[in-house]
């Protein structure tokens, strides 16, 4: 087997004698791709407005729907973060906020951003739009299920937002929803709020399962001729692996949410120990709060990679296209994605070092956590080596990519601190943790999303986004995000605890006040800067420069559709046939600096292409 798989050396596609001829000597055999084994997919074409744009079965439209709804919830999360920063930086201006409000905002901000914004946007948005195009399928394999998936997500968001309007408001137990406090009186939203949160999560998981099955089967069973797994763009690899993680990790969340709902409604004691409240013993008893933490983080840690892996994949493609160089170590990148995905199921309790779990676990989980740093670091080196001596175009997309690498390295290194038990114990529940995870799974994936939007907007709309606005957007976001989260590391080091409504009479009351004001100001500016993108999109839809076919001169399939933007069915009459990987940039001897995936070998016989 190994000979078949490691044969990645550069080869001469044809021996020099054959090429020296007029080209007629090139045997057509090298262009042979075995015939299709799957018959054509027959698609349901919508005719009315409703079937075309609302209950649409076209994965591209569903992707855009996911994108818009996720962005909408993301903006709500952004506004919540503004309110939190207002309280922390300028409490005198936030007199309308009580501590309960603050906790509710913390909770909803966290849950919205992680699950309803990033997960939905990467997998639902980019996954739906890009997977069929990139693997050369006409659509997702189960279009109807795909549509239901989006509308389940829609309902889940509706239920989540409804919790703002029920008595008691949304839950305020922190995004981790730890029992017992999540469902005990005294925590904001302990009745209706937490119930709606659980219902919303269950709906999200159900909806996501439908979508996830689609993504997986499309990648595994519906690729076009010639498209092997090892020729897929890394974007697809990232989204695919993240979906696998989601399919296996969300069950734990579902079970946790279900059991907590039962504790809440029926008064079972899955997670509830004997509790003494104001001198009275509550009727709960014998449950294990730490079980919820295990279930939650068995979901929660893969969730981090559900957000990160698509980002890894997308960034690899963007860097490769805009540095005009093949991705360094493609196979290594793929195996790193798969390896990170697999390992992510064995590291969850590093979120629980101070929870009172079995103390031996610290050893196990610190070890696995540090092992997972190896493939991650490999990826970072490979991105840098891809840039190395590349023909870098310093456009907006590339700026976002560079911003991502810097931010990700920063957040990753603080992750090494927190992965070690002895370092984590003093740092846990301080602003250092906040800074770490916002850097690594907040800002970094967000940078990728922005880069991806600037990159693929021409494909969706047929027009470019404005570069000047884009650069303003980038620099404000990048510098602003650093102004927010860099000082937070320091706040963490001096011990400022997270999730505190205010600092009362602690020493941080005076020492951290200036820094908190600065961070809040930066947060307002960065948040506002995001609206530049929205303006840019609206502007580009009206007066943007038409992009035409394949504006970035990319190799991958999504740019090679007969019409831009692609129609329902994507490929017109004939499905594309793939002859190579998606990264043949700047191949020596080629006419242009890119060779598309559909170019047959006989067309580029005199070049030094990699055998893939």
């Amino acid at each position, binding site marked *: 087997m190994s000979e078949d798989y490691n044969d990645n050396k550069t080869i001469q596609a044809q021996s020099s004698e054959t090429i020296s001829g007029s080209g007629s000597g090139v045997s057509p055999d090298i262009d042979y791709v075995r015939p299709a*084994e799957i018959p054509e997919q027959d698609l349901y074409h919508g005719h009315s407005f409703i079937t075309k744009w609302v209950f649409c079965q076209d994965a591209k439209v569903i992707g855009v729907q996911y994108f818009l709804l996720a962005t909408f919830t993301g903006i709500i999360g952004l506004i919540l973060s503004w309110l939190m920063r207002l309280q922390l930086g300028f409490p005198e201006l936030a007199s309308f906020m009580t501590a309960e409000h603050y906790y509710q905002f913390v909770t909803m901000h966290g849950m919205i951003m992680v699950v309803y914004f990033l997960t939905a946007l990467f997998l639902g948005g980019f996954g739906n739009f890009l997977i069929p195009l990139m693997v050369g399928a006409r659509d997702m394999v189960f279009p109807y299920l795909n549509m239901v998936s989006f509308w389940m997500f829609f309902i889940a968001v509706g239920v989540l937002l409804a919790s703002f309007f029920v008595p008691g408001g949304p839950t305020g137990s922190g995004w981790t929803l730890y029992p017992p406090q999540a469902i005990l009186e005294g925590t904001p939203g302990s009745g209706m709020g937490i119930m709606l949160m659980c219902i919303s999560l269950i709906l999200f998981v159900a909806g996501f399962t439908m979508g996830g099955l689609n993504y997986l089967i499309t990648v595994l069973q519906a690729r076009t001729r010639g498209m092997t797994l090892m020729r897929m763009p890394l974007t697809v690899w990232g989204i695919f692996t993240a979906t696998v993680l989601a399919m296996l990790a969300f069950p734990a969340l579902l079970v946790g949410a279900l059991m907590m709902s039962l504790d809440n409604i029926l008064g079972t004691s899955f997670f509830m120990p004997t509790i003494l409240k104001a001198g009275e013993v509550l009727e709960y008893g014998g449950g294990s709060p730490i079980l919820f933490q295990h279930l939650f983080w068995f979901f929660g840690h893969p969730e981090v990679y559900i957000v990160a892996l698509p980002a890894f994949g997308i960034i690899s493609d963007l860097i490769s296209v805009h540095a005009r160089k093949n991705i360094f170590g493609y196979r290594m990148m793929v195996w790193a994605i798969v390896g990170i995905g697999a390992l992510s199921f064995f590291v969850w309790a590093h979120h629980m070092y101070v929870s009172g779990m079995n103390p031996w676990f610290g050893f196990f989980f610190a070890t696995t956590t540090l092992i997972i740093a190896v493939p991650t670091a490999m990826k970072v080196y490979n991105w840098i080596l891809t840039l190395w001596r590349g023909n870098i175009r310093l456009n907006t997309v590339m700026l976002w990519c560079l911003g991502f690498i810097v931010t990700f390295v920063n957040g990753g290194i603080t992750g090494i601190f927190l992965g070690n038990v002895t370092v984590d114990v003093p740092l846990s529940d301080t602003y250092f943790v906040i800074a770490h995870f916002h850097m690594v799974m907040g800002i970094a994936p967000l940078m990728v999303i922005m880069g991806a939007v600037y990159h693929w907007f021409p494909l969706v709309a047929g027009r470019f986004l404005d570069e000047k606005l884009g650069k303003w957007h980038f620099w404000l976001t990048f510098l602003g995000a650093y102004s927010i989260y860099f000082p937070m590391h320091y706040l963490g080091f001096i011990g400022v605890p997270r999730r505190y409504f205010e600092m009362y009479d602690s020493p941080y009351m005076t020492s951290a006040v200036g820094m908190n004001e600065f961070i809040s100001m930066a947060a307002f500016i960065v948040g506002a800067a995001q609206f530049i993108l929205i303006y840019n999109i609206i502007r580009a839809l009206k007066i943007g420069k038409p992009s035409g076919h394949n504006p970035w001169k990319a190799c991958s399939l999504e740019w090679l559709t007969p019409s831009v933007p692609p129609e329902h069915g994507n490929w017109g009459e004939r499905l594309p046939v793939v002859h190579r990987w998606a990264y043949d940039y700047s191949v020596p001897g080629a006419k242009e600096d890119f060779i598309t995936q559909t170019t047959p070998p006989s067309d580029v016989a005199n070049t030094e292409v990699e055998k893939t």
Partner: protein
Amino acid sequence: MSDPKIEGYEFKPGFKGMAQDTGSDQTMFKGVHWGKAMMWIFLLSDTFIFSCFLISYMKGRGSTLIDWPNPSEVFGLHVFGVDVPLLLIAIMTFVLITSSGTMALAVKYGYEKNKKMCGWLILATAIGGLTFVGMQAFEWSKLIHEGVRPWENPFGAPQFGSFFFMITGFHGTHVSIGVIFLFIYAYKTFKGHYDEGKRGWFTSIKGDYVEIEILGLYWHFVDLVWVFIFAFFYLW
């Protein structure tokens, strides 16, 4: 089933074949219908759900300081003046395995395009499933009658009731959904939807006997879960 024939693709056996299938273009599971692949992945996800339930149960049962009730007595029946341990559960297991067997045969006859046999066997499976759900309802009402509640029970640790109702309830929901689909599929089989390739009501996918196998996978999975619940909940 046995290897399908695919033009231009030579199957290799064993792990060599696995490597070749994985590395080939178009599909990774050669000759596997999309819906069947989807059902397998879904069942994998569902396995994680039930595993999480059972792991929670293990953690809950293992760490409680109050004695766990003896399931052999709690689920025993008093028939003809004799106490038989776990009698009802044994019958339920028997019923579910029976229905699993009829389902397996239905799949076989489906592939042989034997509409009649296939339809009747699906119907038999559905009735077996219905019997199972009915007996579970009887078991629940018996326990509730004896004072077992999700939040308490007279025999010992309150978690016993919680986990019992949750896990068997979740499994019972799976069975019930399966029964509904079995009836629908029996109707569709008798109507000949799979012979004519009639399109589905919602999905507009053309009917094919492979759908029987997909449903069969689900049904066997439900049986499979019961094997684990039987071992861990009733026998432990």
